[in-house]
């Protein structure tokens, strides 16, 4: 077994964010295990999205530290963090609508070539990436859509493409903010399965209100409330916790539990 530190891919220490006197994230100590799917849940306004924004440096923490693979990344820029392998997905679908599906993935792959600034090279030099791109598309089930212009894809497939592009970055840690929001049941299932699949060999930290999804794939769940950690553990542990029920799940009769 690894020792404890190398097993932790991401750690926050006393992470805090205040907005003009209102503390949205309060002294949060989070440890994400390498290779796990970690879910962040909690009532609305608990500070989940804010947490994500801090981790990717879209917001500046008021206090506290963020450690990635044991290194302090608290002071780094968003693009630097992305290059380290922490990639986040957005709540709205984030694709390049007028590029082809293949080109979308290639944009993700291209950075590694180191020719992104080479304005004198032919774009044919990018064809070497095609094989890898097809491979990624196959992984998310889009192999047959490679030549399609992205706008024409249905919603769920756009999400899949987004994930494929994200995978192209070879992320060590993926941050997903409500990945199934606004999806129909079929798509929810497809994306859930996809997340499970791509989680192999990677770490995923996700925010999700859909308890069905969370119970299905998350290894560890952290419940936030009013900016602070309320509970942490497996789904069984957390969902049985009375405090969590009261703050988040609501009635104990289970009628609406996992409402989606």
């Amino acid at each position, binding site marked *: 077994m690894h020792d404890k530190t190398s097993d932790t891919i991401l750690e926050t220490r006393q992470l805090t964010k205040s907005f003009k006197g209102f503390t949205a994230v309060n002294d949060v100590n989070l440890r994400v295990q390498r290779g796990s799917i970690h879910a962040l849940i909690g009532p609305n306004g608990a500070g989940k999205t804010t947490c994500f924004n801090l981790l*990717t440096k879209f917001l500046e923490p008021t206090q506290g530290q963020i450690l990635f693979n044991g290194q302090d990344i608290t002071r780094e820029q*968003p*693009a630097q963090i*992305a*290059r380290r392998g922490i*990639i*986040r997905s*957005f709540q709205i679908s*984030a*694709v*390049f*609508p*007028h*590029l082809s599906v293949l*080109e979308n993935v*290639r*944009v*993700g792959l*291209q*950075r590694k*070539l180191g*020719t*992104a*600034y*080479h*304005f*004198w*090279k*032919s*774009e044919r*030099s*990018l064809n070497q990436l095609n094989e890898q791109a097809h491979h990624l598309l196959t992984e998310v089930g889009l192999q047959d859509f490679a030549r399609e212009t992205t706008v024409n894809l249905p919603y769920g497939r756009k999400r899949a493409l987004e994930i494929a*592009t994200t995978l192209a*970055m070879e992320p060590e840690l993926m941050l997903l903010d409500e990945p199934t929001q606004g999806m129909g049941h079929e798509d929810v299932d497809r994306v859930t399965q996809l997340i499970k699949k791509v989680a192999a060999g990677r770490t995923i930290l996700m925010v999700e209100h859909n308890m069905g999804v969370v119970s299905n794939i998350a290894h560890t769940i952290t419940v936030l409330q009013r900016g602070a950690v309320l509970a942490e553990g497996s789904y069984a542990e957390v969902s049985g916790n009375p405090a969590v029920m009261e703050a988040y799940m609501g009635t104990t009769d289970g009628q609406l539990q996992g409402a989606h």
Partner: protein
Amino acid sequence: MNKTSKNILYGLLLLVLLAVPFIGIYPVLVMKLLCFALFASAFNLLLGYTGLLSFGHAAFLGGSAYVTGHALKVWGVPTEVGLLLGTLAGAVLGWLVGSLAIRRQGIYFTMITLALAQMLFFFCLQMPFTGGEDGLQAVPRGQLLGFINLGNDLTMYYVTLLITAAAFLLIMRIVHSPFGQILKAIKENEPRAISLGYDTQRFKLMVFVLSAALSGLAGSLKTLAMGFATLTDVHWTMSGSVVLMTLVGGLGTLSGPLVGAAVVIALENKLGEFGHLVASTTGIEWFNGLGESVTMVIGFIFVVCVLAFRRGIMGEVIALVERWRGKQA
């Protein structure tokens, strides 16, 4: 349009351009046109392919025009050095304006470029080396590479054609390069490009500098061809013209700016004659005054383009060809 038919068209265009002096067209006018076609293409690199509307491109055209003019006239440097210095000046100015402007997005970006260019305008108005309102006049063309005498309009014409064609090829290459691919991505969805680890500000700055440098080349070439650099080149109306050229020709198409430049230059130079012609054929006296109403007509074209003709001439042509192909298929 597919590649071969496009190449055939470009080939034809080149043939026509090569033949210009022999078919009775005034080469000085065509030189001017070529310079502006290059200017518009450089501008389109920014607007059409990156989605950044700069309203300060006159600064690069004009700034470089002055630098080249001054270098040739006062320092007496060789012609090719003058052109190079002008292009360099365009790049440097582009870097200065660009690094300020890309701090803001959208319409603010546009206003900042406009304001900074206006600042350069006032600077040029006051600096003694620009000749103020009088401009730099009688800039010598000199000899290219020490043995090609540019004093002859014909020689100058072919040199201009050569340089603009080369620059145009470069622009084509930029658009279809790994770099161009990222630009497209930025235009489509900038936050996503950032999250994929691209420093989009640097890409934007770089394309801004490239566009400015090429605009600078256009300006230097223009000084050389016409023999002067004046405040007109740095005035904001010049920035407006280049937007119009690109818009009329077709945003984001490679050939659009060429067509657009031709239309606008022809309009500015020949509207009066055209007015007289219409007046004499229709007998409506009003058209005789058309030449004085160039601004009005240009304004009108702007309005029409925005309201009804946003794809521009080449955009429409391409769409037409595509529809026609669709029917065939």
